[in-house]
């Protein structure tokens, strides 16, 4: 369990962390999600001890580590650009922490081989980092961090430098790895899809503060403010209200935009809209519309089947209604 209380960090006049408090439960995989400059990396590096706080405390497993050096925090850290020891082989890289701890040679050898099997690099022991792909280097870095049996594993945008395909593969792999080794893990990312995919808890950060903490479902379905809502997933604005595009129901006649037994077209606020463009995105279809009353553009997401059944085409008039819209605190979208 990691507890951060009242953390502050300033770079000149810029507040990277502005009174941040966060609990990270043991064994969880928590994502710190936010745009660049939101303070998520600073928070992670403060937990690691690579950054010293101007105020506040960090506890790891009940122990106050605020002034403890990174060497003594018992952590594993993975960097975005791997930080591979280039002059060492894969074996030497992974063995580094164990050698520093002066473990007996056979134990080191055994542990390194085990870990390399787990991360899928068995047989790569004698390669140099330069002979590995980006994804392999990052898995080696993970093995290196895990070798010392850290209390917490901290990952700073670990997949940020990899291309899209490798990134999705690796995060699925990371999720499975976490299910196996159960080490408390904190992952920094600016990619909402990545956070929703791997994390069991997400802390959304913005301008040095934490906006909301919760499970992916909670954050997605019940965002507490407009920032969280628009940062996690797509949003559309219908009659001044933020809604998820897939929560907009479309119909050819006003009545068809209703779900059963919910009221009348008048009480439910059905909007007449003109279809401007229909974009096919595989299974989903994005319909770009214009509100006929206000002239405001908005978009809805429907399935391929629904789009086909409705026979949507540019220039036609449809009726739209938001089926659900979360209650949000007013926070300006930045």
């Amino acid at each position, binding site marked *: 369990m990691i507890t951060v209380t009242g953390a502050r960090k300033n770079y000149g006049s810029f507040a990277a962390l502005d009174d941040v408090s966060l609990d990270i439960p043991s064994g969880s995989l928590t994502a710190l999600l936010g745009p660049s400059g939101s303070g998520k990396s600073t928070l992670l590096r403060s937990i*690691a001890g*690579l950054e010293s706080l101007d105020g506040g405390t960090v506890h790891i497993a009940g122990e106050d580590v605020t002034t403890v050096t*990174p060497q*003594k925090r018992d952590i594993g*850290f993975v960097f975005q650009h791997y930080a591979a020891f280039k*002059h060492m082989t894969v074996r030497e890289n992974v063995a580094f922490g164990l050698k*520093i701890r002066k473990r007996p040679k056979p134990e080191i050898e055994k542990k390194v081989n085990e870990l390399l099997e787990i991360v899928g690099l068995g047989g790569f022991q004698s390669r140099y980092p330069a002979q590995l792909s980006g994804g392999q280097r990052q898995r080696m870095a993970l093995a290196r961090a895990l070798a010392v049996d850290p209390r917490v594993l901290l990952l700073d945008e670990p997949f940020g430098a990899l291309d899209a395909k490798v990134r999705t593969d690796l995060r699925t792999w990371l999720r499975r790895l976490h299910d196996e080794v159960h080490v408390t893990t904190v992952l920094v990312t600016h990619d909402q899809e990545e956070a929703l995919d791997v994390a069991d808890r997400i802390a959304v950060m913005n301008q040095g503060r934490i906006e909301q903490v919760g499970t992916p479902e909670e954050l997605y379905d019940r965002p507490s403010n407009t920032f969280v809502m628009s940062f996690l997933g797509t949003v559309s604005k219908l009659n001044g209200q933020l809604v998820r595009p897939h929560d907009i129901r479309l119909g050819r006649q006003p009545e068809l935009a209703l779900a059963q037994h919910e009221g009348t077209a008048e009480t439910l606020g059905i909007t007449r809209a003109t279809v401007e463009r229909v974009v096919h995105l595989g299974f989903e279809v994005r319909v770009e519309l214009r509100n006929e009353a206000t002239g405001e553009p908005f978009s809805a997401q429907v399935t391929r089947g629904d789009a086909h059944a409705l026979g949507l085409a540019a220039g036609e008039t449809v009726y739209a209604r938001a089926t659900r819209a979360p209650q949000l605190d007013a926070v300006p979208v930045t």
Partner: protein
Amino acid sequence: MNVSLPVKISLRTIALGYLFVLLLVPIGVILYRTFENGIGAFAESISTPAAISALNLSLLIVAIVVPVNVVFGIVVALALVRGRFPGRRLLQAVVDLPFAVSPIVVGVALIMLWGANGWFGAVESLGFKVIFGLPGMVIATIFVTLPFVVREVEPVLYEIGEEQEQAAATLGADTWQTFWRITLPAIRWGLTYGVVLTVARALGEFGAVIMVSSGFPGVSQTLTLLVHARYIDDHNTFGAYSAATLLMAIAVIVLLLMTLLDRKRSTEE
């Protein structure tokens, strides 16, 4: 760039001709004059007591200067790349000073500082002879070779960044362990180049050293001073050529070592 064939050929001819006249001809002349009387005469000329002593002195100076410059160079390069302190820019400029100052000026400055009437001249009365002794020659050589290690290590330090060191720290390595196991291996090629340049310059330094050396054959003559003395004072041109060839041979060996190390590096990376 697209150039016609005749232009291409004439450009190459000019470039090669330039190198030939400026570099190869002088070296060729020296080699020819050295060996025109056979290898025996050359061997004899470089094994006189004065020549052996000069060779030993040159190597001794190198052996003192290189470790000093390595330690100083790494510390200064680290300070310049990682340090955030007032005066960093000034230090940056000061490091290049030896490139800008003529070696003979260095020699004069050292005499004014360490000579019998200089600011630090008092050390001579304590029996520690700097000027016209080995310390003076070492100090002069350090002065002129000071930037090499710094300037070769600095860009490598920039390039590797701090992440590897931070990674080592999170894995439990203390500052000293991180330096020996991560930083030093990472900068070793820059350091190697710096050392090679230092060796070459230390062997070849003349202007600063002649000012602070008493120049006695067999006592305080380096190889370059020997070349000079044989040619100017003794009118022993053949002896001068032989000593120059010896000097060149050492430089070539250093160069070859560097090329070999370079090849090892390219297979490693």
